[in-house]
């Protein structure tokens, strides 16, 4: 495998990437994928020059990332698809085709990623359609019943049973990756905060880690600990939202409102640190803007004590209710085998028994010194995805209480220098949904020429499609909430 091996957040000179010809590129990537590596990126090094692309593979066992380059020397932009053998690459190939006009040869089924009903520049896209007696199609969205982001869902049903679900997104596309290239540093941080407003800390942390690597800035341990506490607070808050949503979707009002009440305490804890319930304004390049003091530590501790005490009772109530368990168990199952093949990440993957947590497999920031425990479940159903979130809340609470007892002293912001020229970095953070990846590349003047964002939802939407197969259509809201994916993070 001809590749450049790097680590999470390690800055490298992108001239060191060997740009292979079509055959060698195909063989190298296939070799990596056959070794069990996962594709985490496929895009040009320079947004304006689509001829040189990189494929990034990740090996979570050795915490390594492999960058394989490809130079397209022909007149047409094309490469040989990997998706027939490795379905996990499918969506990355669709994205490359849509954004840069690449044609993945022998690709099984090209679909739009963010554009509406168009593939390969101008060809109309036809949704997959099932024929047969008593087969019917149900179309939902983009606007849904609740206060929720837009997306279009097409179900091919036979009676109540879903045979196939196709998910069409892109309604939230705001062009963040393009805006990033011309934005000033203040705007870049705010853009990161707005990639997915429910993952402010996760995305901004990924972004800041990337830029601190590119400017070769070392962050003080105190700032790192504050960042990770904020990250865990976000995880608890959003897992509580998710659990409340799951309870709500089975019409179980009491735990739904009880989880909602606890979430307020957690986001208010974040607000007592930085003034925003979502952690906006907390991050700056080189550290954090707001520091812990006796007052906010006391506030956060007392809030979390209530959460710790009450959540136990709520979890017991929800997960011991026969009515709830009947709805959760064996609903929306994704097998471990399928999950691996399509490259699921985050809570959806952990619920299938895949041990993949960037805090453990690609440790960054404070998690290098203060590890968290891996948590996995094996059934891959709604129950596993719900229960896993309850367990992750416990672990996050443990982490925060432990850190609050012993916050390292020091300054919270370091001075940040200029961006390194001709460099690149791949930054990975475990957001509450899963693996967030930001990749940044600079040119010979230190200007950003590529900024690629991958939200965990990008991998996981297809998992929701698979989970719905042979499931009653009435269970769709429940399955959807158990995955709890981001539309904005996918659409960028």
């Amino acid at each position, binding site marked *: 495998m001809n590749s450049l091996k790097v680590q999470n957040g390690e800055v490298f000179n992108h001239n060191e990437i060997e740009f292979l010809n079509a055959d060698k590129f195909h063989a190298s990537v296939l070799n990596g994928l056959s070794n069990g590596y996962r594709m985490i990126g496929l895009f040009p090094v320079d947004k304006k020059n689509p001829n040189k692309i990189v494929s990034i593979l990740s090996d979570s066992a050795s915490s390594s990332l492999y960058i394989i380059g490809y130079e397209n020397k022909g007149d047409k932009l094309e490469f040989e698809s990997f998706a027939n053998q490795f379905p996990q690459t499918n969506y990355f190939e669709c994205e490359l085709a849509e954004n840069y006009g690449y044609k993945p040869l022998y690709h099984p089924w090209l679909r739009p990623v963010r554009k509406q009903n168009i593939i390969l520049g101008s060809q109309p896209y036809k949704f997959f359609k099932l024929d047969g007696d008593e087969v019917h199609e149900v179309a939902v969205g983009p606007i849904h019943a609740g206060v929720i982001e837009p997306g279009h869902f097409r179900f091919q049903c036979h009676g109540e049973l879903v045979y196939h679900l196709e998910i069409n997104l892109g309604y939230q596309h705001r062009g963040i990756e*393009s805006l990033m290239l011309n934005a000033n540093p203040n705007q870049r941080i705010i853009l990161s905060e707005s990639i997915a407003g429910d993952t402010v800390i996760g995305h901004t942390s990924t972004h800041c880690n990337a830029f601190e690597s590119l400017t070769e800035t070392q962050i003080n341990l105190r700032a790192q600990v504050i960042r990770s506490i904020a990250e865990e607070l976000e995880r608890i808050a959003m897992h509580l939202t998710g659990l409340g949503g799951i309870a709500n979707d089975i019409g179980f009002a009491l735990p739904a409102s009880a989880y*909602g009440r606890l979430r307020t305490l957690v986001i208010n804890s974040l607000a007592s640190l930085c003034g925003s319930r979502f952690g906006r304004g907390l991050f700056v390049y080189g550290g954090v803007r707001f520091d812990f003091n006796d007052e906010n530590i006391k506030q956060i501790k007392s809030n979390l004590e209530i959460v710790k005490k009450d959540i136990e009772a709520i979890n017991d109530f929800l997960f011991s209710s026969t009515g709830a368990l009947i709805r959760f168990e064996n609903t929306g199952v994704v097998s471990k085998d399928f999950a691996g093949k399509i490259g699921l990440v985050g809570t959806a993957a952990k619920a299938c028994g895949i041990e993949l947590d960037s805090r453990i497999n690609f440790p960054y920031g404070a998690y290098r010194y203060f590890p968290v425990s891996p948590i996995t479940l094996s059934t891959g159903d709604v129950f596993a995805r719900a229960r896993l979130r309850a367990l992750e809340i416990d672990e996050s609470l443990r982490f925060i209480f432990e850190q609050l007892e012993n916050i390292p002293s020091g300054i919270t912001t370091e001075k940040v220098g200029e961006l390194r020229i001709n460099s690149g970095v791949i930054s990975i953070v475990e957001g509450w949904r899963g693996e967030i990846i930001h990749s940044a590349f600079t040119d010979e003047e230190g200007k950003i020429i590529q900024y690629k964002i991958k939200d965990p939802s990008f991998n996981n939407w297809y998992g929701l499609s698979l989970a719905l197969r042979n499931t009653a259509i009435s269970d769709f809201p429940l399955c959807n909430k158990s995955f709890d994916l981001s539309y904005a993070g996918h659409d960028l």
Partner: protein
Amino acid sequence: MIDAIKLRILQRDSIIQDVSTASLPKLFRGLPVIEDKPCPDGCKKCAEVCPTNAIKTEPLSIDLGLCLFCPLCEEVCPEKIIHYTNDFNLAVDKREKLIITKETKTISPEKASEKIRKYFGRSLKLRQISAGGCNGCELELNALSNVNFDMGRFGIEFVASPRHADGIVITGPLTKNMANATQICYDAVPNPKIIILFGACAISGGIFKNSEETERKFLEQNKIDLYIPGCPPHPLTFINGLLDWLDKK
């Protein structure tokens, strides 16, 4: 059953008893004020640092429609002329009222017309449209229905169908891909109907105002009834804005 009662008791009372007198932590960035002090000669630091160019100098003003309530201007001001208060009453009925100057102490909406108050004063059903919203605004709108804010007690609720709604609440900068759906949804709401813009993105495009992927014609073609600034706005901003507007306090 006993477990359910125990859990209900555990929840205790609503955290916010009265939404109009609730107070937020000091650190919360609500209404910014501009002190009546002269700026140092030629100092434009606040305007330069503002990520959405919401600040104009000579005379100093802040456009809350563009403001993301980030701490940057407050942080760079050498004379502490701009600083945030924790006042969450930010809703207004006219775009120009969002421009904050030295004279501004508080902002509030004018009372809605008698007709609107007659129709919607006791029951207001809203349909939310996320048109590029990042889910920050959506989470805060969802929070309005939880046990802490409990907006339903004022007869204000979100409904599933635009046909059951009295108006729409738009979040996000109005992306091209949502332009059509937004129009269809609005058309499906029966007359009389209102439009509320929730958050900086909806009001001005916010951080996405220069994006080529937005299409904001819908807002030029229709009258906006209420602006709720913030990034995202606090639930209390929304609820108090509506109560002021409907004269229900």
